[in-house]
């Protein structure tokens, strides 16, 4: 396989990129100064080699602990639980939330064979227990899908039994939508209007 074909194939595997777009991207790179391609290659390399899950919250991180967990300005009494690290970006982008996060790494789905043991549920429990009462509220920000709701119901019982109050994002986020695609102002509203479960 030629180099061109190979790059087209790699681009074409990215979400939202079809073979046509992949070909256009490759043509663009070939017409650009070589430095542009090198910069792209270097940043992709840095991404895959340096980014790893934060050992505390599971967020994308360039070091052992992510920027949010290491920020002394953050409110350590509130943890916002999300399905994926992409959701951290969405919620933090809304500017409404100044607490910490916990990334589950998915949602409960027996159909896909995903149980609590496959998610970072134990880590959440350890974290709350380890804080010795500092964590006073857990916001469940799983997606408003059937699976996201069931996951929230599961965590609610679990978290409440070890201390903190549990809240859920206010309604207003369209049912079945991914937080990833919800705009910032809607997310900010849902956060400020969160309710006790």
């Amino acid at each position: 396989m030629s180099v061109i074909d190979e790059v087209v194939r790699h681009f074409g595997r990215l979400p939202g990129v079809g073979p046509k777009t992949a070909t256009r991207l490759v043509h663009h790179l070939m017409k650009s100064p070589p430095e542009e391609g090198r910069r792209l290659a270097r940043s992709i390399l840095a991404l895959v080699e340096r980014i790893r899950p934060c050992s505390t919250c599971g967020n994308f991180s360039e070091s052992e602990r992510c920027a949010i967990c290491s920020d002394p300005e953050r409110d350590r009494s509130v943890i916002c639980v999300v399905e994926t690290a992409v959701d951290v970006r969405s919620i933090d982008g809304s500017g409404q939330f100044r607490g910490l996060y916990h990334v589950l790494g998915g949602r409960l789905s027996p159909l896909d064979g995903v149980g609590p043991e496959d998610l970072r549920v134990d880590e959440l429990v350890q974290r709350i227990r380890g804080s010795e009462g500092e964590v006073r509220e857990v916001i469940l920000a799983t997606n408003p899908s059937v699976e996201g709701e069931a996951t929230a119901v599961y965590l609610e019982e679990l978290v409440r039994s070890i201390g903190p109050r549990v809240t859920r994002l206010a309604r207003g986020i369209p049912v079945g939508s991914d937080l990833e695609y919800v705009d910032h102002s809607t997310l900010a509203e849902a956060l400020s209007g969160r309710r006790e479960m």
Partner: protein
Amino acid sequence: MRLSRLGVVGFRNLRDATMAVPLEGVAILGANAQGKTNLLEAIHYLEIFRSFRGVPDRQLVRFGEEGFRVSADLAPETPTGGEEEGTHDHGEAAKDSVAVVFRRDGGSKRVTLGGQPVERLADAIGSVGSVLFTPDDVRLVSDGPAERRRYLDILLSLNVSGYLDALQRFRHGLSQRNSALREGRPEREVRIWDEAIIGPGAQVMWTRAVWIRDRAQAFRSYYREISGGESARIHYAPGISGTAEWADRSAAAEDFRRSLRRTADRERSTGATVVGPQRDELRFFAESPHRSRDVRAYGSGGERRTAALALRLLEADTVRVGRGTEPILLLDDVFGELDEGRAGRVLELLERSVPGQVLITAPRESDLRLRREVLPRWFLRDGEVTV
């Protein structure tokens, strides 16, 4: 709605043709296997976008063809319901149209409404408003309960807004919950799916219950008329404990929740959710002064056919109310199976209660015990219609 023009290309044994359909309806005569049922199947395909005989789309394509196309122009009811002045000019009468193109290669199905492609098939389903009667309808009564639930689901999805959505959400939640049970997950990992099935499940049961409750009287009178004075009732038995005498949807939800709690042990050993609308049953009881018999189990052939016909008539009522238009009746050789008395009374009933367009097939003129002598005749031979 009335069908003013029908076009078929590549569909089963039917000759490619465009036909002007008389607005009052037509009687289609032809020997067996000439294509009468195929013609009605093509028309009803525009209502449900699949074969009413449950045949895969590929098998509807005529041998050697790439695919098929079925199209129709639709004319609205005239408000007076009387003589349709000038509407026989089919080109002008067609206010609306629906068409479907299926390609064997890739199995793609493209639907247009008024010439515009529809994004989701669901947006086009039910736009013709046809109600089909076939000799197989007796199976609605004699087959297992799943057949009747499927029937209700199609009917209510087409006519009650929100039903299909609730049904899909219920099924989704149920498959998650059953999967958790099947895998023997701990109880609290099962219970977290309860609300996912209770809300939409209660909506499904409530909608079914209301539909049957509101039509119980009509069923009784249709049955009496067709049978010539016999009595029978339709009954909805929800798949949870208790009867469907709920005051509202939340009462249904409460009963559902209570039943779930009670069956926790049983579902654990079964490995599946044992209560809910997936266990609903629709039953028919023939009544005499001293006793009541389940028609499915103990009814005669005539009683079963009568119950099935009454059910189809309720369907026609539902189309009329739900879509605000007179249904198009498609009668596929339904009188061959009935005794003379019943057949005559069904026709009387249809003429009186369903004044819309009617397309009716029969093997011979003599089988067409039709009082609507005015209906034009089509003759179908080897897939070709001659007027």
